[in-house]
């Protein structure tokens, strides 16, 4: 079999296939529910209810989506330049570490110190990605592996910090960091809403990245470097400088995920701050075809599936692991569906 590009896919394809992917996910959910002895016909309703069925559910979904928007954007920016940043997880933790370092003592007015915290977190994340990128530009070392490896080094470093120098003396020996000062927590968007300004920051970032990608010289250069670095170099584009700039943006965005999780939700750093947000961000970005606004939608979709399916597992009495299964299945179906909106399969 082979794939043939479709010149002008119709709306039936563009909307039908992703819908089919969702349908197939629900089918898998129902089959799993059946196997687990639950009512297969209730799954769809329970998932939707669990994700968006109440103000509480919706807010939880948005909360869950926030770090995914950041990491998804981080990956989308980097992948545009064909900079395979698999290390959003590490950059996220770098941002989180910096947030704690700056935020553990309050030394200035929050309106001053919070932006400093955010900025230095961005710098920390950027720095973490800068390493692999310099190895790439200087020595030609493949960044897929180095960024992946940095994730584990970073996690061990965090583990060292929370068991050592940053360990909370009031934490009863539990491996977690000192807390961020109370006045340096990101405020809630509105009174009584469990949604903090990190979410708004994520949306703003997405818009900003979109503008950068489509309207600026840098955005154009990033794409040129991604598509054909040699031609870009010949045309006078400073390839390495563009890669470094890309890395700074990408690492910074991922770090904001850590910043927003720590300053917005957790208040401290621990080794399990991120249940794989950095990795899921990769999938989010790819499903979104690296489009920044698509990243927002995809992050909401992924968060919705997870929160909804997790809630469904409790309501239907199915083991909780079904949430991860459905998230994975939905994502795989979705990337396939999106591919097939642009290509047709020819059997010969």
């Amino acid at each position: 079999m082979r794939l043939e590009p479709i010149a002008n896919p119709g709306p039936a394809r563009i909307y039908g296939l992703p819908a089919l992917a969702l349908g197939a996910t629900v089918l898998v959910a129902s089959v799993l529910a059946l196997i687990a002895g639950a009512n297969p016909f209730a799954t769809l309703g329970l998932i939707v209810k669990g994700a968006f069925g109440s103000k509480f559910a919706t807010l939880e979904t948005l909360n869950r989506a926030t770090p995914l928007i950041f990491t998804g954007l981080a990956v989308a920016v980097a992948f545009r330049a064909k900079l395979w940043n698999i290390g959003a997880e590490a950059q996220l933790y770098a941002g989180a570490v910096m947030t704690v370092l700056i935020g553990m003592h309050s030394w200035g007015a929050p309106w001053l110190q919070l932006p400093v915290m955010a900025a230095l977190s961005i710098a920390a994340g950027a720095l973490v990605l800068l390493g692999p990128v310099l190895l790439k530009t200087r020595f030609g070392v493949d960044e897929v592996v180095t960024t992946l490896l940095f994730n584990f080094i970073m996690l061990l470093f965090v583990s060292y910090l929370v068991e050592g120098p940053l360990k909370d003396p009031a934490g009863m020996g539990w491996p977690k960091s000192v807390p961020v000062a109370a006045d340096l927590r990101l405020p809630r968007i509105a009174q009584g809403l469990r949604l903090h300004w990190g979410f708004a920051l994520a949306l703003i970032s997405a818009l900003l990245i979109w503008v950068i990608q489509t309207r600026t010289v840098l955005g154009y250069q990033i794409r040129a470097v991604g598509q054909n670095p040699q031609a870009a170099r010949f045309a006078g584009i400073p390839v390495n400088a563009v890669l470094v700039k890309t890395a700074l943006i990408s690492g910074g965005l991922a770090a904001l995920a850590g910043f927003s999780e720590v300053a917005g939700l957790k208040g401290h750093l621990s080794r399990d701050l991120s249940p794989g947000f950095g990795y899921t961000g990769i999938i989010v970005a790819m499903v979104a075809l690296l489009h920044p606004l698509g990243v927002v939608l995809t992050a909401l979709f992924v968060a919705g599936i997870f929160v909804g399916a997790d809630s469904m597992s409790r309501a239907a009495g199915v083991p909780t692991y079904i949430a991860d299964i459905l998230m994975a299945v939905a994502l795989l179906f979705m990337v396939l569906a999106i591919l097939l909106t642009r290509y047709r399969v020819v059997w010969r």
Partner: protein
Amino acid sequence: MTDPAEVLRLDRITKRFGALVANDAISLRLRAGEVVALLGENGAGKTTLMNILFGQYVADEGQITAFGRALPPGNPRAALNAGIGMVHQHFTLADQLTVLENILLGTRGLWSWSMDIAAARAKVMALAGRFGLSVDPDARVGRLSVGERQRVEILKALYRDARVLILDEPTAVLTPQEAEALFDTLRKMVAEGLAVIFISHKLNEVMAIADRCLVLRHGRMAGEVETRDTSPAQLAAMMVGAEVTRPQIAAGQAGRALLQLDRVTTPDREGAPGLKAASLALHAGQITGIAGVSGNGQAALSDILSGLLSPASGRLLIEGQPAPDRWTPAAALASGLGRIPEDRHKTGTIADFTLTENAVLETHVRPPFSRGGWMDWAAAAAHTRDIIEKYDVRCPGPDARIRLLSGGNMQKLILGRVLEAGPSVILANQPVRGLDIGAIAYVHGQLLAARDRGAAVILISEDLDEVMQLSDVIHVISEGRLSPPIPRGTASVADLGLWMAGEGFPHAA
């Protein structure tokens, strides 16, 4: 009634890509011991036809018979087993593997436990000796020169006992010497009864090697002639469908020197020599030709001019002033250089970018295409429409991805991009490689026009005829050394050929 010597027969092959008919009921016969040339403009359907023959595409209609037996469609393995070998336009070799490994690939059942390297090596060496294809069987392919790689490709086919060999533009990337060696090999093969299909845009080669010529035009068979009954001019007319007129070339009016190299030396790189104390002056209103066998320092020269390389010693002067310290592609562009790169696919364009995005690749940092870091896409699109119109770029529109353009049209866009920026110095590196005659005439015409407007043009080409026709002054390049300038008409082809072969330049006056 079949001809006993007939080895291959294509009957009314038709292939459509969507609305486009790439091959329209094409028939072809091939006899043992003959060389058939397949000619046609870019996009005429030559490669498509051969891909069908080799089973990589499936024809919509028609059938193929090899050695009297029908060939199942869409099955390269069947084609190989039927004795058909193909050397693709773009080589299909694995760089990290050795020559021997590349040749052995796929020749033995996948599930067998041994490769019997010794026997294979002996067979390869025997074949190499017989056909004059010298190559080290244990060398990594990635280390080989283009000519050597092509020999490996031919050995691959011969190793599988191919009786029919298809060569798709085999000489497009070869030096004249390598091409001559290839023809020797082909003659030996034909003498042993192999049949060859040979695709080329170079009519003199076709006249030299082919027994018969088939001409395709827009996917249709435009004619078939015995080589001895035809002439290059007639072939060209058949390809294009009209008489081809060559531009009349008058001598240029030399102005002041716009760019000079003063005893420039650059380091050698991976087998390719750098420049050795090379001196050169590019004058306004002149075309300066660089003649030489590829791999003699042309890459270094081109890199120096385009800002990819700085001189290790010696000076680079622009309008008499030393070039900026940070000599980068951006600096070169800023100081008025225009560049038609050697490889339009790899370094000239970005395949997945639109025409517009490609058209401003080198100028996007300047107004009107950008201001203060912000792109102005409307201005860029307007500019692209201008180029499309002025340079007759045949394309769906400025928003089409450039990968869909044929080589000739891609080259026209590049030409427009360079010339519209109003460069004072134009570096044209192999500007017509792989183009058909119509496109070649167009590109040459534009270069001459730019010269006449006062630009200094430097033309790097391995095609000596092209250099001699166009250039007002010629430098021969050999082993990184540049000869003194030779004015138009003061040296014969034979002289230049000798100097190119490194027989020592005449001393500067």
